[in-house]
């Protein structure tokens, strides 16, 4: 063992101990931060399992965030109401979520049309959706929101889990982490489990997976490939819409230009890392979210000693880069070991057989 390795091992051990120590405080933040990533990943999983690559998840999220905020804000202005005891819901917030989901599905319809009927290159059409979303939301933000700084419907309140659950020794923090969340975050785990079961045990799941692997084969046994892909892409966009709603109706109560900051792409990496399964993608999303939450942990519960010096010495900008760096590293390590659906990204065309 050379001179270098001893202090390095020491630091690593300190880091592990620190992480375990800070986990109960970190977990609820990470689970919340994972929500938009996981929802974006569900959008990606369903789409790619059907054979359609959706690079535009980022754009869908952004448009949903914007539409959700605007609709909720204007409804709240027009019909102010007291929040309900459940999640602090108001009609404004609920209509905002609906608007977010529906607007994302509209973009999903566009993406479906471009990819399936026009058979445009799917990465290009997704990139175009992203750029267009940035431009359009930026403009309407300036036009509608900037002159209206008090616009906003507030956010959903988090659920308070009963003390009996959270005070259980050793595992109580898990309940706290999972349950002390807003409605959208809590719906994520349900969505993930339902999708996992449906994808591998239901007729819809079988036909979807067949279409993503070998659409010609599915076509010859009477599966309507085009219709299935359209429905799946539009439906998957709803998840991206929910992610957008999380941004402006559950996490913060404002809209900033480009506030998705790459979440849509991290979601794509989560899809690949999770081997195109809902549960795998959710796990990957959690991983990425934890790296994002690390910065919060360090500022809330600063570690002491050598580790503390080291972590405090790391510039703030490096922490901000951590989730992106982690995404690159994992993607590089995972691609190639993780096999996509065989027809992923390939448009389906019934060739004239002569």
């Amino acid at each position: 063992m050379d001179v270098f390795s001893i202090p390095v091992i020491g630091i690593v051990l300190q880091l592990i101990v620190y992480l375990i120590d800070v986990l109960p405080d970190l977990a609820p933040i990470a689970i919340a931060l994972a929500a938009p990533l996981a929802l974006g990943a569900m959008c990606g999983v369903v789409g790619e399992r059907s054979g359609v690559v959706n690079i535009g998840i980022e754009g869908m999220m952004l448009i949903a965030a914007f539409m959700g905020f605007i609709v909720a804000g204007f409804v709240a202005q027009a019909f102010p109401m007291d929040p309900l005891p459940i999640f602090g819901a108001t009609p404004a917030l609920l209509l905002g979520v609906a608007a977010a989901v529906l607007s994302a599905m509209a973009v999903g319809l566009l993406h479906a049309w471009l990819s399936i009927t026009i058979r445009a290159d799917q990465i290009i059409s997704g990139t175009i959706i992203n750029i267009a979303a940035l431009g359009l939301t930026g403009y309407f933000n300036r036009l509608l929101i900037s002159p209206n700084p008090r616009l906003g419907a507030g956010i959903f309140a988090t659920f308070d889990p009963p003390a009996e659950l959270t005070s259980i020794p050793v595992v109580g923090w898990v309940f706290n982490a999972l349950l002390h969340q807003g409605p959208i975050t809590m719906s994520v785990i349900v969505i993930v489990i339902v999708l996992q079961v449906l994808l591998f045990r239901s007729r819809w799941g079988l036909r979807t997976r067949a279409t993503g692997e070998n659409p010609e084969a599915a076509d010859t046994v009477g599966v309507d490939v085009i219709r299935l892909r359209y429905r799946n892409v539009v439906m998957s966009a709803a998840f991206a819409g929910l992610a957008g709603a999380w941004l402006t109706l559950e996490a913060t109560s404002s809209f900033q230009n480009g506030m998705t900051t790459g979440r849509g792409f991290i979601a794509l990496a989560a899809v690949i890392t999770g081997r195109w399964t809902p549960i795998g993608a959710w796990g990957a999303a959690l991983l990425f979210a934890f790296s994002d939450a690390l910065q919060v942990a360090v500022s809330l519960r600063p570690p002491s000693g050598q580790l503390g010096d080291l972590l405090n010495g790391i510039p703030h900008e490096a922490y901000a880069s951590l989730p992106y760096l982690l995404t690159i590293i994992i993607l590089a390590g995972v691609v190639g070991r993780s096999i996509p659906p065989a027809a992923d990204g390939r448009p389906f065309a019934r060739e004239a057989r002569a």
Partner: protein
Amino acid sequence: MSRLRQLWDRARPVVAVPLGAVILGLVVAGVVALASSVFTPQGFDLLLPFKVYAGLFGGAFLGLDHITNTLVNATPLIVAGLAVGFGFKAGLFNIGADGQFLLGAVMAAGIGAMLATAPAIVAIPVALGAAAIAGALWGFIPGALKAWTGAHEVVTTIMLNFIGRSLVAYLVLNVFQAPGFSFARTGPLGNAELPTLGFLSPDLDRLNLGILIALLLVPAIWWLLFRSTLGFEIRTVGTNPDAARYAGMRPAVLTILTMSLSGLLAGVAGGLDILGATHFIPASYGTTVGFDSIAVALLGRSHPVGILLAGLLFGALRAGAGPMQLDAHIPVELVDVIQAVILLFLAADVIVRQLLRIRRAKSGLEPVEAATGSYGKQASL
């Protein structure tokens, strides 16, 4: 006149859709502006779209100072557009032009400030060279990752955009920060500034060497792509990587080379922007060049001449936006809407063809269409 007609006949299948997309984009943006007028203090105004067009056109072309602004805005767009288009020809999606541009800019700003008192003949090439190297590095990383691991560049380049922004902030705050300013920024460039035509007229004060460099790069890249063996290899790998391997080409090497070259160009674009126009960079540089360059490359169909024209168009739009806002009281972000609509029409080119009755060009698979096939798959060789 008939030679012109011949030229138009040959060019039409390729040019018709982008041209149509631009026209439709402007029309739709006019409608959006009209609808938006409801929300402005001036209220609904039927003449508003025309005020918008007039404002944009005038702001871009009327007056030497405005033309200068157009050219100055177009310079980084042309060079960065060449970067993105070059990548497309190889079947690679360099969405990282934003990060490469910024790193090039910060290196040019920092190194340039350090060499402010050195003779210009040294300061300018060194600063520009630093920008080129930084951009090339930021292109090399996703290129190498794609070649060695198969990690698709569409995701890695976007990640590097965000990391790049953080890196730029760090560098400006901790390495290149100049004392004596009210906000964090790099220092004055002195001799590292690109020479301008300001001596001819104060209106031309901003018209710098950058536009000349951009104009020279267009034929250079064209030659590289279409007349050189390297260009042939790049285009072959971009269109059919399997056949390329069987022809003895090495897709891995070409991927890395192309992404590095693309990054280099984007870095140079950033360097030209700083050395020629803005002369410094703050910790958080609000530039739209990154995504504009993608729009430029798509509109220009990845062809150097098309990119030149598209770059000039968007340069004009960006230059005209400010005066337009003053005249018509519509936010400058309308240009983003124009860009968005143009891009959407490019994607849905069927609509453009229907509306403007253009027949389908007899072209083969666009090289960048072959690239979606590599999404999520292991690198081969």
